């Protein structure tokens, strides 16, 4: 894929010094074609600008002093450059300083929300991926009566919209006295999602049975095979699944909004919503808000920079039916 893309990407400005693999393709025959190509590339560039520019605007606003934003609304550079917004969000500014810079003076417990988000996203990811892997093992490598029926039932729940189960789940968590606890936040996500099981089962089905059978002849039990053979061999899809799950959980809003309103368990997404509505005197603290959203998005952005290829290549359709 890459090679063909490379050879086709720059037909026009190929340096003359390079020995062409193809005999001189830049002749008159190609000219109308190049116009199309230029047009297509323009569209690609426009799409990328539309996609990326808002993030730059987020950064620009976060680096501005809130009080100066209004008078420099269309200036592309930060208005009255200041790190105050970041300091304010991270609690490094006194309320007086904050108000002087146009902040609300009200504290947002950013560090606390950050901690809560980390706990919520990592616990649910770890549980969900591990338990789903166990179930996927039972659905793919073990033979037992009713296997396909149970698997079908699991898959069917993919069709149920989250809001539908959210109300009864809320009532149950409330009755269990788990509102505003990490247990209440995490439980519905902790054990499985149909998608995770489906995803891993597909991979386990494709793994070779030989090593496993040899181990079994040696008297190894299923637990050992699962931990020492299956899981290590499935490291790549497990990592991809964990990455996707973590991003999804980090961004989750609806369920934490229902059961995690309390400060001590409030996650970043919910906290940001509260922060926005917290603008007592007139104009909202835009730079503070943008600094907060930027920091809240940072973990996902970093993960994406580190493992982006894995995420991008994991998106497709070949297995869904």
């Amino acid at each position, binding site marked *: *894929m890459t090679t*063909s*893309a490379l050879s086709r*990407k720059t037909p026009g400005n190929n340096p003359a010094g390079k020995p062409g693999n193809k005999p001189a393709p830049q002749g008159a025959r190609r000219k109308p074609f190049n116009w199309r190509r230029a047009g297509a*590339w323009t569209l*690609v560039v426009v*799409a*990328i600008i539309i*996609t990326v520019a*808002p993030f730059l*605007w987020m950064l620009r606003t976060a680096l501005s002093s809130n009080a100066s934003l209004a008078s420099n*609304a*269309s200036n592309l550079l930060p208005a009255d450059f200041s790190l105050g917004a970041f300091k304010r969000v991270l609690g490094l500014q006194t309320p007086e300083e904050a108000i002087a810079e146009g902040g609300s003076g009200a504290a947002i417990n950013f560090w606390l929300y950050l901690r809560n988000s980390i706990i919520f996203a990592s616990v649910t990811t770890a549980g969900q991926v591990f*338990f789903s892997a*166990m*179930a996927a*093992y039972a659905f793919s490598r073990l033979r037992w*009566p009713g296997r396909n029926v149970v698997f079908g039932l*699991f898959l069917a*729940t993919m*069709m149920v919209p989250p*809001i*539908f189960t959210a*109300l*009864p*789940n809320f009532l149950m968590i*409330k009755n269990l006295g788990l509102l505003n606890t990490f247990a209440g936040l995490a*439980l519905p996500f*902790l054990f*499985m999602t149909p*998608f995770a*099981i489906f995803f891993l089962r*597909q*991979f386990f089905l*494709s793994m070779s*049975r030989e090593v496993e059978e040899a181990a079994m002849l040696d008297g190894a039990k299923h637990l050992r095979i699962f931990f020492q053979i299956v899981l290590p061999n499935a490291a*790549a899809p497990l990592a991809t699944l964990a990455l996707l799950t973590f*991003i999804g959980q980090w*961004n989750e*809003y609806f369920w934490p*909004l229902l059961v995690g309103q309390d400060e001590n368990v409030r996650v970043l*997404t919910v906290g*940001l*919503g509260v922060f*926005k509505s917290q603008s007592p005197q007139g104009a909202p603290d835009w730079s503070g808000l*943008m600094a907060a*959203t930027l920091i*809240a*998005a940072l973990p996902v952005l970093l993960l*994406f920079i580190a493992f982006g*290829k894995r*995420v*991008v*290549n*994991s*998106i*497709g*359709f*070949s*297995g869904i039916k």
Partner: protein
Amino acid sequence: MTTITKLPDPVAGGSKHSHRGNTPRPGRGRRLGDLRIALLFILPAMIGFVAFFLVPTIRGIYLSFTEYSVLGDPTWIGTRNYTAIFADELFWNAMAVTLQYVGLNIGFQTVIALGLALLMHRVAKSTLIRGALLLPFLVANVIVALLWFWMLDYQIGIVNEIINWFGLPRIAFFGSEQWAIPTIAGVNVWRHMGYTALLIFAGLQSIPSHVYEVASLDGASQTRTFWSITMPLLRPVLVLVLVVTVIGSFQVFDTVAVTTGGGPINASRVIQMYIYQKAFGESDFGYASALSVILFVILALVAFIQMKFLKGNESDLD
């Protein structure tokens, strides 16, 4: 996050792949197979399935036939919630608003994503470009909503500055009844277009190149090739993309909750927002449950109709 993901190709490990499915394992009960150990492996997932999917689904349906305000016990009232809903103007308003949102969101999103996918397929196959286009999808709904809430601010938002610079009147994107839903739809088009494009792109890549070669040998024009080769062969993927995106679109909530909260007046009170307000604002869990049963039925119908009439599960390739 609704994720549709490419699964590891079962043929990939082909060389070592050996099915000895029929060889019986030594020393095991033939009929029950690995049942005991399987139960152990499936136990945690089964707990999650029963406690957080199966029971709530049944309980949700039950609650929809009751009056329940969290305090006390639910009282059975038969179909009174449903008859009330059909006479409820706010419900019909919510449905209309939601449909308007879905139409705008899916319409623009699908066309733009199809265009982007074709561009990626034809000229820009680099992973970097695909990664950049995927970026908004990875950031939380809430963050995307807040970012655009700021950029579309009436007074000092950059978009209104640009509009103003062109000499046009400023627009109250989130603040006016006529603009609220188109604005929210637009924000979510921005968030999802790259992701949707990648799904379609994956479908494009699965079209074998020899089909195109034959077409170009026959001298078919680009437009002709697109309409008579690409589109028919892409149809199954497009249908699946539509099913998934339409179902997701019906459940829009985060963006609305963070920006307009359903207003101004009722202009952006989408169905999930209405359910949320009924349940948690007015503690009317019976009514809210009935609303979500209706939403559930609508979504199932939508999926069924799309699969049936667009024949999503058949490919024209064979």
